[in-house]
């Protein structure tokens, strides 16, 4: 009830704000009011979650009493409608910031408010505050996979990025509509917003990647799932938009590409929301989506965004500045070429993501396998690496050819050292050789430029070094890895996997649920031993949740993921015969209507066991000694099928733990690269020199 009142009040205030802005009357208090109420609405839902108000259906579906309070709060974004509430609150905070900043123009405000209206109406459709007629004592709980720091922070961060992006879109609309705003002032306005969106979206992507790596369910740090692609595409467009900004300033060209990439970033973010919420790609994505009512709202939003973008492009004709072709050996040209690569790559990823939908329309259901992307990445990675390798060497304007040899020599030398290192390691894959050369080159050329620049301008260099490290990490880690599945038995050496052997040292049940603790030692060629502690937990629904053991290193990561353990072994002796296995011997002495007699022996002891067949099922289970259980699964005419579960400390030998053991190389480069890119963006955002940039760039060239 209270929730719905707050929801409808926010909607009314949002509409009132839009009207008041166009009437130029009372708009500020109305916008502040809508922001406060919208944040209150989120507060109300959080309070309902924390106070275990299971009468609200959303709380019942996504939370439970035993949940720690931090996860109760995070249940806000565990579901479709809850995450929309969070989103609208974040948009409200952006609105509050805009209205208090004063300078914001009315068209941008209206754009953000209209977007907010779409989010709010989506909330109405998903009806998060719906009450149950029944009262529940406890809720259904939170998905165990979401109980993880990275998953806790990934959605809010992504929503911040989605919310921030509405502002540069509004500013661009305003620029297209205004008669006297200069392109320079528009660029200065959008730059911090683009940088901030780029940063938050990047952090969101990285957190998602760390999560999927640690939880392994998705097999690595990136799976080319539609949902992942959907956030990658706007990030790529944002990169292109940002890179065409300084080029614009100096050579007065590319205004169209800056506008185009900014619009594309916004539209692709709307598209990302559409993909994750409408269910259009649910057949090929990890996520299952409900969606029906939302897809209508989202389709309208998507069409509106596209129409607005087309409108801006048409209006832009009047604003086109005199173009000046950049010289071939210049930063401007490299950036243009790089943006072209990014544009084509994004388009290809987009088509591949929608391939199932496209082919369905044609009439033959087809999907793209992920190997598609790893092949496409090679030429894209090489072209981009080459671009960032040479950017520090070229000037914005024309680069003098005479100055080149001096600047090229050290990067080339270090690049060649990189190739030699690969040769020593026995790596002869052309793509890897080219990329390592370019990466080493990038490192040196950027460090040389950093020495020449003031430290305040290091942002792009740091990000570029990060990108070249990331590309090497991606290519190497996906080309060199060992994955092997095996079944471990107590104290038995496994097969050799990637020069390592595994031994299951101990396995014990922690409680009656079947939760277990195990310890595995991993021995490498140099006899270095790593102890891996593994745990398995049976969750409420009776499913196993296991967390892999990961030993990170600069060169290689060792990952050990346990599976569902098999506690006992099956033995099926015929009458008068014995069966041997795992150090046990089972002999079937006699079978008649009243009893079954067997004898069981291991290396140390022997037991004669008589099963009474007259009573109920429980007599098919005998425990000759503590922690040793023998259970008759089937009694035939002249045979039995018995399960022996021996959990005795030190001597118990029936446990079989399936594991997946993998060694992956240079995963550390992936994380270092990603983190450097984010640090670079943050650096650029903080050190942003608002007005002097044009002059500065010219000074660098001089």
């Amino acid at each position, binding site marked *: 009830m209270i929730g719905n009142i707050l929801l409808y009040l926010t909607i009314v205030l949002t509409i009132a704000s839009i009207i008041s802005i166009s009437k130029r009357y009372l708009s500020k208090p109305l916008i502040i009011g809508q922001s406060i109420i919208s944040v209150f609405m989120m507060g109300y839902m959080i309070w309902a979650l924390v106070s275990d108000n299971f009468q609200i259906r959303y709380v019942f579906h996504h939370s439970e009493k035993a949940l720690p309070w931090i996860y109760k709060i995070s249940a806000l974004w565990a579901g*479709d409608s809850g995450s929309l509430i969070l989103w609208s609150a974040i948009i409200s905070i952006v609105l509050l910031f805009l209205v208090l900043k004063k300078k914001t123009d009315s068209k941008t405000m209206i754009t953000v408010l209209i977007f907010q209206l779409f989010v709010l109406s989506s909330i109405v459709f998903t009806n998060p505050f719906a009450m149950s007629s029944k009262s529940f004592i406890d809720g259904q709980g939170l998905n165990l996979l979401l109980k993880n720091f990275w998953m806790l922070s990934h959605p809010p961060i992504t929503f911040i990025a989605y919310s921030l992006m509405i502002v540069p879109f509004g500013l661009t609309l305003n620029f297209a509509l205004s008669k006297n705003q200069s392109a320079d002032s528009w660029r200065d306005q959008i730059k911090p917003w683009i940088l901030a969106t780029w940063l938050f979206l990047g952090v969101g992507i990285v957190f998602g990647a760390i999560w999927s790596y640690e939880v392994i369910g998705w097999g690595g740090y990136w799976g080319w799932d539609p949902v992942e692609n959907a956030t990658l595409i706007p990030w790529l467009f944002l990169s292109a938009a940002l890179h065409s900004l300084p080029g614009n300033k100096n050579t007065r060209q590319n205004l169209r590409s800056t506008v185009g990439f900014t619009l594309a970033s916004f539209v692709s973010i709307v598209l990302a929301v559409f993909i994750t919420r409408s269910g259009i790609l649910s057949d090929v994505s990890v996520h299952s989506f409900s969606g029906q009512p939302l897809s209508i709202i989202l389709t309208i939003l998507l069409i509106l965004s596209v129409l607005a973008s087309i409108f801006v492009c048409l209006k832009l004709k009047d604003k086109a500045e005199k173009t000046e072709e950049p010289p071939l050996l210049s930063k401007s040209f490299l950036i243009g070429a790089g943006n*072209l690569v990014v544009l084509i790559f994004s388009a290809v990823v987009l088509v591949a993501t929608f391939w199932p939908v496209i082919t369905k329309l044609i009439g033959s259901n087809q*999907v793209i396998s992920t190997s598609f992307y790893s092949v496409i990445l090679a030429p894209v990675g090489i072209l981009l690496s080459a671009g960032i390798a040479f950017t520090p060497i070229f000037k914005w304007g024309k680069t003098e050819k005479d100055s080149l040899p001096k600047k090229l020599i050290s990067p080339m030398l270090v690049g060649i050292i990189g190739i030699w290192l690969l040769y020593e390691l026995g790596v002869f894959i052309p793509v890897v050789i080219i990329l390592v050369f370019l990466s080493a080159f990038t490192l040196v050329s950027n460090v040389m430029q950093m020495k020449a620049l003031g430290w305040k301008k290091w942002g792009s260099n740091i990000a570029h070094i990060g990108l070249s490290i990331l590309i090497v990490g991606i290519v190497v880690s996906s080309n060199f890895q060992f994955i092997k*599945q095996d079944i471990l038995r107590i104290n038995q050496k496994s097969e050799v996997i990637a020069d390592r052997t595994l031994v299951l040292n101990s396995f014990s049940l922690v409680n009656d649920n079947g939760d277990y603790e195990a310890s595995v030692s991993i021995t490498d060629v140099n006899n270095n031993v790593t102890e891996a502690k593994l745990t398995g937990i049976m969750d409420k629904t009776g499913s196993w949740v296991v967390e892999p053991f990961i030993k990170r290193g600069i060169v290689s990561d060792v990952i050990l*993921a346990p599976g*569902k353990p098999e506690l006992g072994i099956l033995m099926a002796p015929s009458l008068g015969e014995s069966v041997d296995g795992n150090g046990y011997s089972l002999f079937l002495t006699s079978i008649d209507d009243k009893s079954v007699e067997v004898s069981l022996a291991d290396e140390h002891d022997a037991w004669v066991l008589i099963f009474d067949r007259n009573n109920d099922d429980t007599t098919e289970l005998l425990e000759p000694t503590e922690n040793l259980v023998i259970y008759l699964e089937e009694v035939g005419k002249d045979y039995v099928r018995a399960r022996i579960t021996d959990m005795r400390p030190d001597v118990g030998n029936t446990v079989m733990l399936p594991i*997946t053991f993998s060694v992956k190389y240079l995963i550390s480069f992936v994380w270092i690269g990603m983190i450097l890119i984010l640090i670079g963006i943050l650096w650029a955002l903080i050190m942003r020199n608002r007005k002097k940039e044009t002059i500065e760039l010219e000074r660098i060239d001089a």
Partner: protein
Amino acid sequence: MKKTRIIIGAVIVVLLVTVSIWMFVISSTPYTQDFNEAMSGKRVQVWGNIDKDSIIGNNFSIISEKGEVLPVVLLNQIPSNIEQADSCVVTGVWTDDFFEAESILLKCPSKYEEKVEE
């Protein structure tokens, strides 16, 4: 000068577009829920419900909506959350005895979908 720039641009476009189209042709795989098609010997992507009792190591079975059973052997790492998934999509080829899958995509129920109440 202008010519060189256009040539470089054209080379980039032609290179990337060619590689992409070629890869689209190679890696496009039919998607089906029909197990007869899955057992045709062609490389397919097939959807089915996971028979949770059948999971042993990386062997398991999937069940179609008609109730047919398809035994699957996963060549890759089995995801740790397989038991939390309802259904999955596996990509691979039918060998004589089982479906040899090189990849699996799990569909987890509780992500955005709310379970039936009462």
